């Protein structure tokens, strides 16, 4: 028998009032896989993450982590199954230091001594925030907060990491660093990454799932997706259009 997929959704739907935010999504991710989610704004990517982390409950359909349904589980129980998330706007303990943020993440699943070790390793080596270790996160810039949150998620040592626009607001060099970091993390954790930047996606992903209007439009390797007419229409068409605008 094969192992069950790390994450599997079946006919997953949620609607708020009349709005069908996620509609009939069948999605599955193998252990160790890195998947990119793309799609125009409002396509349901962030909502999909909220369903995977239990922040929203689905209207219908199921989510299973390691073959186990997460229906009825609280957010913290799902986190304990090994799911970590970096949110679009960094969500941190603002008045605590970088080290405390990362330590709290490690401490949940580890002894105090192990948590100290993990915090040191994450801060010094994995995200390289040593000079800010004792700085309150509220005082950091948006870019640095992105990195702190990445550190927080890594320190959980989760099986699955959800990253919602990890490179948003980053420029050339930082983006490259982030891509390297993601590839490194992927050696130990499976990941789902929501991104807009195509260059970034090409750099990190093999498989891409395209969301549109709450549904999965295409799911394939990067090149196939980029060549797909429908994808160009709903997503890339818009983006190249925008680039034209700014270029003009």
């Amino acid at each position, binding site marked *: 028998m094969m192992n069950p997929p790390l994450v599997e959704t079946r006919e997953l739907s949620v609607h708020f009032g009349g709005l069908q935010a996620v509609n009939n999504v069948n999605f599955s991710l193998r252990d160790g896989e890195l998947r990119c989610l793309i799609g125009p704004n409002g396509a349901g990517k*962030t909502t999909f*993450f*909220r369903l995977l*982390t239990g*922040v929203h409950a689905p209207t219908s359909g199921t989510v299973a982590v390691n073959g186990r349904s997460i229906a009825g589980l*609280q*957010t*913290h*129980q799902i*986190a*304990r199954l090994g799911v*970590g*998330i970096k*949110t*679009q*706007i*960094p*969500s*941190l*303990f*603002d*008045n*605590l230091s970088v*080290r*405390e943020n990362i*330590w*709290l*993440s490690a*401490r*949940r*699943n580890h002894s*105090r001594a192990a948590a*100290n070790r993990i915090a040191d390793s994450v801060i010094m080596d994995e995200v390289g925030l040593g000079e*800010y270790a*004792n*700085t*309150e996160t*509220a*005082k*950091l*810039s*948006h*870019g*640095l*907060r992105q990195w702190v949150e990445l550190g*927080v998620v890594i320190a*959980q040592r989760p099986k699955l990491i959800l990253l*919602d626009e990890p490179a948003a*607001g980053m420029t050339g060099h930082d983006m490259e660093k982030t891509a390297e970091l993601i590839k490194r993390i992927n050696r130990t954790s499976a990941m789902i990454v929501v991104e807009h930047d195509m260059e970034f996606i090409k750099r990190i992903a093999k498989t891409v799932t395209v969301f549109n209007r709450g549904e999965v439009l295409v799911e394939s390797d990067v090149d196939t997706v980029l060549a797909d007419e429908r994808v160009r229409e709903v997503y890339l068409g818009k983006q190249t259009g925008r680039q034209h605008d700014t270029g003009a």
Partner: protein
Amino acid sequence: MNGSRNYWPIAAAVIAALSAIIVLPVIYDEYALLQLTIYAILSVLALSLAFIWGYGGILSFGHAVFFGLGAYTYAIGAMNFGETTIALLLSMVIPALFAAALGYFLFYGRISDVYLGAITLTVTLIFFDLASSTSGPQYRIGQVALGGFNGIPSIPQLNVPGFPDWTLSTTELFILSVAILALVYISLRLLISSDFGRVVIAIKENEVRAELLGYDARKYKLVTFVIGGAIAGLAGCLFANWGGFTSPAVFALGQSVQIIIWMVVGGVGTLAGPVIGCVLMQWLTSSLASFGTVNNNLVLGGILVIVVLLLPQGLVPTIARLARGRRPVQRLDATAGALGATPAKSEVGA
């Protein structure tokens, strides 16, 4: 957790308590000591809310419920049993149990903020109504008539455990109250710097983030609430000892407001602040009473409004910041300004 725990507040508390216990009974007479005792007792009450609000982020508008329950439990227990040790313990256990029930109801129902305020306020009013309506001989617990609006008089003093006849003198009650104040302060300080305490603070900072890391916020809040309830109950027990009397006034709205004023004046998010706020406001209240010209409510209300408007962090954090000569929060990056609007409790991917 950073290896170097800060022990000087604990040392300061021990020294302050020891000097108060040694020096004050020598220089003051019993009447003056009795006046000082109430400061210590109410400071214990201040600490209990300082913990659950300042560190747990749970703003209870009806914190006096636990104080009142402690006072009533001690009164009923002591008068029924004769020996006061069990009554003393019950005065913490009963409020703690009630806090557990109420806390379960609130936190596992995901009730927070204004709604939590409304419910806790309502609960204290229910107790006030019920306690006030227990006049008449049919309302007794054991041998003790609850006495309705008039309350329960002639509550026996605490005795040394095992010696029912060895009751505490005024001086001994003073020493006990100061010792308990120091003990509660030190325990809370240690608790806050423990791993448990770090998580409690983290949940106050950002509950969603804490849950996404796998912490059960409901459980931590519940434990925080129960600890606060037990401490407030202990303060109530001491209070019943101090006056030898308890009445529904302990459940009154004014009692709950008073604790909140201490905290706002002294500084939410500190332990020393609410104690200082409590002593300051009590001193002010009794000074005003001795002048008898200015209305007490006028002054208390005025102070509360002015502090919220002009000194929103309260005395202790403001003074601490001035002492350190530090400017208010500055971000470390020029680009931060535009993005600084990140809400403190941003929802997932909001």
